[in-house]
């Protein structure tokens, strides 16, 4: 069992090295994210201009939500994993995985974990630089249980994120170019994942519907636990159940797409 896992440890280490080469790109991306955070602070600061609370939360609670979201984005989001998988299929690089005793999903997931470890660590640098400005606005609830509950939710969110990216990558078996689908999905994810605004600001029927969609569990769910937007234990427990169901569904879809996709795949040459 351990020997079987050892190859994924190597894949993880290769991923770590590969992503460290692009450390400046991640750092630049992290720096640009501060611009996004500035936009968020200015927009929501202006929106709170005449009122103390929006949707039951103060300005600082809302800003804390967006800072948490930024951090989560670099630690668990799929950046270009779909594109990498797509390139593997298009260029025939996937053939080598068909001949070796290694699971392609496991290999890609190991590299994804390594990549997020690098990007997540690097985004801490600009955030630490900005900390003197952010500190006065951060309003995290002082409840340690949120960390204990939020971290597993975060890990499952990473699975949801990666599985969706993996699905899109595998669509290359059927379509020449998947970038359109990916960016189309990003638009949906940005709204239903809570990146544009906290989902609890939606009308109640829309918020209730969003809770049954996978996008809710991509980032909003752990962010809402960490920042106090979700406090009801029953609601959190229900969230975990739905998140687990989505992980299972997405893994099953991953498997089905892989099996069906390989039937269409043609490998030529050596």
């Amino acid at each position, binding site marked *: 069992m351990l020997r079987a896992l050892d190859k994924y440890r190597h894949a993880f280490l290769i991923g770590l090295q590969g992503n460290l080469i692009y450390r400046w790109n991640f750092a*630049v*991306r992290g720096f640009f994210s501060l611009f996004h955070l500035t936009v968020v602070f*200015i927009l929501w600061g202006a929106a709170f201009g*005449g009122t103390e609370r929006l949707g039951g939360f103060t300005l600082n609670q809302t800003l804390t939500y967006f800072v948490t979201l930024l951090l989560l984005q670099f630690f668990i989001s799929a950046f270009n994993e779909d594109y990498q998988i797509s390139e593997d299929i298009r260029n025939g690089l996937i053939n080598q995985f068909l001949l070796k005793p290694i699971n392609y999903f496991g290999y890609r997931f190991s590299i994804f974990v390594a990549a997020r470890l690098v990007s997540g660590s690097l985004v801490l640098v600009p955030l630490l630089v900005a900390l003197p400005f952010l500190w006065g606005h951060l309003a995290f609830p002082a409840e340690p249980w949120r960390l204990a509950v939020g971290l597993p939710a975060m890990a499952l969110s990473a699975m949801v994120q990666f599985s969706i990216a993996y699905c899109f990558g595998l669509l290359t078996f059927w379509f020449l170019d998947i970038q359109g689908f990916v960016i189309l999905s990003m*638009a*949906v994810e940005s709204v239903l994942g809570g990146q544009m605004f906290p989902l609890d*600001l939606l009308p109640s029927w829309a918020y209730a519907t969003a809770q049954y969609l996978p996008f809710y569990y991509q980032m909003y769910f752990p962010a809402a636990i960490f920042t106090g937007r979700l406090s009801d234990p029953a609601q959190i427990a229900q969230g975990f159940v739905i998140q687990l169901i989505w992980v299972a569904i997405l893994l099953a879809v991953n498997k089905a797409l892989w099996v069906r996709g390989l039937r269409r795949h043609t490998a030529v040459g050596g």
Partner: protein
Amino acid sequence: MTYYLRVWAASARYSITRAMMFRGDLLVWSLVELFWMGVNLLTIDVIYRHTDSVAGWSKHEMMLLVGTSMLIQRFLMGFFWSSLFEMGRNVRTGNFDFTLAQPGNVLFMASTRKLDLDGLMNSAIAAGVVIYSVRQLGLHPGPADVALYAFFVLCGIVIHYSVLVLSISMVFWLSSAQGVEGGYFSMTEFSRLPRQAFRGVVARTLFVYALPVVVVSNTPASSLLHGFNPTLTLWLAGSAAVWFTVAVWTFHRGLRRYASASS
């Protein structure tokens, strides 16, 4: 000048023919642009469900501002985005040699290789958002107001183009363009904010006065709302000239570092 127009027309013809060959792709990418515009409008709708005013701007004034910002961005996407995005990749792979070998100004050749029909098609939708907002606000702009608005949008395209060239030119100093084009999107996010939202000396100095990102959309939108303002006009036209010069200079400085495919 005529030569460059002919080159651009030839590239446009090629791009249109290619887009017609891949009609499914055109449909998907048009939907992509449409969805992203929808995301921005939905965000406005959600915020205004909880408040009546953002920095003194009503919901439809804000829609006019965001519509203007989208209009400028769609034009940029339609005319320049694909070419410049590809330039970033080509510099890394060495395929930029092909552009350098073409008989003409390098930046022009690199900027105009492709035309995106989806971006241009969606500029009509963005214009629709502007017209809808103008109607909802009960404004009746005359031909001179529309001409002034069009001039401001043109200045905005020049500024957006310059910021994009500056972002992509970073690839000459970095090992990959991955992520750096995000600089353009980060900067243009500011163009969807009203100028009055920037409070404090640092925010005002940096984002309103030093960087051109706020003035680019606020000036055209304000011209429709409040009429001609000579100071804002000079400011926008001057910003367009200065930022274009800086972008061209940076691109050529970066070009000196390009080591070709043999590196």
